[in-house]
């Protein structure tokens, strides 16, 4: 096998694929990336057996077919360190030669026959979602997953797939993020797979990274135990998170008392209020009263802080206690000029943030008595 290609695009291809390669694994072979040349097309394949990726490298010429395994970490370093515009990879027997400019590396090739296969995207009926919308949905939910959870299937993002609507839900049982995509999705054919897959956070991160073009369409084919996603040059396979996702709709509150806020100034106040908190006193009191929101925090051995911000509020005063890190994580994925609305019931029950574009974020308060 012998192939020549642009160094930068090869480096970026290896960069994408190495995202799934496990750094610590009992199966040494998984630390490699498979390079496959077939009828002029070159594909890089990586997997940790939960998540796998196939990446078609653009602009590669391969004279002959074949496949080899190369060590992921080392090849990535080589491709970033060496100069030169093009790089040539040449397999001779049991060695791989990598040449570019003045540099020549000779690595031992590893037998690819033991490398686990990664499924290809073959479905002809699937869901289609616009790249931009998918990226936003992932960014707005992935941070709320809980990979440690043993009680529920919270280690991923739940997708509710319908022909004209896809909902993305993630929760760690203290807060919940929900995104509904309505117009930027459709179906091709009549997909009849699993309509409620829970896709692991790791796979969602890789899917997000695979979206290079906002307008490009991403294809998703959902099955009982896995999903396949086709996005640009990449095909991503992922096993699903096993277990039951909680009945989240029951916990999204209505919240009759509303407060309109702008992300930027609200986030600035939250960041200030977070300064005087520590592991043991994560709760910050938020008091809504007479056109003012007051953050009062107190941490033993640190001190106290009180931050006021003007708001439009004239309902009965409410004091509630939140772990502000959860609010900060929500604000971080929004543009500073965006308007959000906070819905409250009282100081002891769940609060809800909403945006105009179908993003809902529910957060539970801390109880004030033990």
């Amino acid at each position: 096998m012998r192939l020549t290609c642009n160094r930068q695009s090869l480096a970026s291809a290896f960069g994408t694929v190495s995202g799934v390669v496990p750094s610590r694994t009992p199966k040494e072979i998984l630390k490699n990336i498979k390079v496959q040349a077939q009828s002029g097309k070159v594909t890089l394949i990586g997997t940790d057996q939960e998540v796998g990726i196939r990446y078609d490298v653009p602009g590669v010429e391969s004279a002959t077919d074949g496949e080899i395994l190369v060590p992921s970490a080392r090849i990535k370093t080589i491709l970033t360190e060496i100069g030169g515009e093009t790089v040539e990879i040449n397999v001779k027997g049991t060695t791989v030669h990598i040449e570019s400019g003045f540099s020549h590396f000779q690595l031992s090739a590893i037998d690819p026959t033991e490398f686990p296969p990664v499924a290809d995207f073959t479905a002809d009926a699937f869901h289609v979602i616009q790249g931009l919308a998918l990226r936003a949905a992932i960014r707005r939910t992935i941070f709320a997953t809980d990979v440690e959870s043993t009680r529920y299937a919270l280690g991923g993002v739940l997708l509710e797939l319908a022909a004209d609507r896809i909902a993305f839900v993630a929760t760690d049982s203290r807060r919940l993020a929900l995104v509904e995509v309505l117009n930027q999705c459709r179906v091709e054919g009549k997909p009849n797979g699993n309509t409620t897959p829970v896709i692991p956070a790791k796979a969602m991160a890789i899917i997000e990274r695979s979206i290079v073009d906002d307008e490009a369409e991403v294809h998703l084919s959902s099955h009982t135990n896995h999903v396949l996603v086709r996005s640009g040059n990449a095909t991503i396979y992922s096993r699903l998170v096993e277990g039951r996702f909680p009945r989240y709709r029951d916990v999204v509150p209505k919240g009759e008392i509303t407060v309109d806020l702008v992300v930027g100034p609200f986030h600035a106040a939250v960041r200030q209020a977070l300064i005087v908190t520590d592991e043991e006193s994560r709760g910050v009191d938020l008091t809504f009263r007479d056109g003012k929101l007051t953050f009062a925090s107190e941490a033993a051995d640190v001190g106290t802080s009180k931050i006021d911000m003007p708001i439009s509020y004239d309902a009965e005063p409410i004091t509630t206690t939140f772990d502000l890190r959860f609010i900060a994580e929500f604000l971080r994925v929004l543009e500073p000029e965006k308007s959000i609305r906070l819905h409250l019931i009282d100081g002891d029950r769940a609060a809800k943030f909403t945006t105009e574009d179908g993003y809902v974020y529910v957060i539970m308060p801390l109880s004030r008595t033990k």
Partner: protein
Amino acid sequence: MILHVDMDAFYASVEERDRPELVGKPLIVGGTPAGRGVVAAANYVVRRFGVHSAMPTSKALRLCPDAIVIRPRMDHYAAISAQIRNILNRYTPLVEPLSLDEAFLDVTGTEGLFGPAPEVARRIKREILSEVGLIASVGVAPNKFLAKVASDLKKPDALVVVDPGRIPEFLDPLPVGRLWGVGRVTGSLFDDMGIRTIADLRRRTPDFLRQHFGQHGDHLWRLAHGIDDRRVVPDREAKSISHETTFAADISDREALRAWLLELTEQVGRRLRAHHRRGRAVQIKVRFADFRTITRATTLAEPTDATQLLWKAAADLLEKGLPRGCPGLRLLGVGVSHFDHATKVQRTLFDEPEEQRNRQLDAATDRIREKFGAAALNRGSGLLHQARHRPAPRLPPAEPQGDEE
């Protein structure tokens, strides 16, 4: 100075006190041979036949067929233990209970108030006898290790004072088996090396000991020199609550280890709840047959005192911490630390029913065990090591530890 107060043949002495007709007869408090029970306590009469605690009752009865076997009344012993605790609390706030019948006291700060430590020891012995009707042995020494060795040296009814200026003279003639952490296995290794007394051990270099026993070697070297800087930590001040147990024979069966771990975790959970503590960090401690000791810790999302959640974390650590085919274990321990002092608790969206169930289960278990003893109730998997695997512990089982770190 530190006092180690150790009740003599506690359970058996309580039974003799309550039923004077038993005095002078061989008496075993423990499980029945039919139930594969073990000796929880043996009075001094039956000990002359070679019977000791943790021995299977069936074996004890072979050694002394006339022995009277009484089932333990844990609730009763616990109540008496509380009376004794009250006496100890008169002399210092620094009382660290190790079990129902043992405690460390730090009287350093209260000697001005109550007189020198040996005098306090004498008064404690006198008050326990006159108010509770039981006999205690007390060791008085500059540290915990020496105090514990001292209290055990001339049982029963002993008062042994270790002169801080004459520690080598005190330790040197003692057999190495007196050192904490030296059991049968280490003992026979020492025997092969010609080390029989603590004096023999003290002549070896720390390097030599480290070579043969790993980290444990440093520990042995320090003890042989009478060095022990563990503080006396009352439960309410402890920064961690842990239990550990040393097995009579190394265990490599995973299910047996899990069963032991569950029991230790339940004890830790019980003490956490008794002291209204919720911990955020769970740690397990494992000592392999080759003395290599490892600890593995994990942090929970929320501080807890629920046995179920602690168990999940501890079992996970054991699963990940023990490589397949690793050597057997001689010691297993579990601890909880990073207590939450916050008065506010993060509420959750979904899992309140389960949390509530956990809480109710724990509360019910605690009440039953308080009333009827630890053996009264067990989780399904906990039965396992009782039925098949329960080995007699080499040391008093599950020595509680209050560490400050």
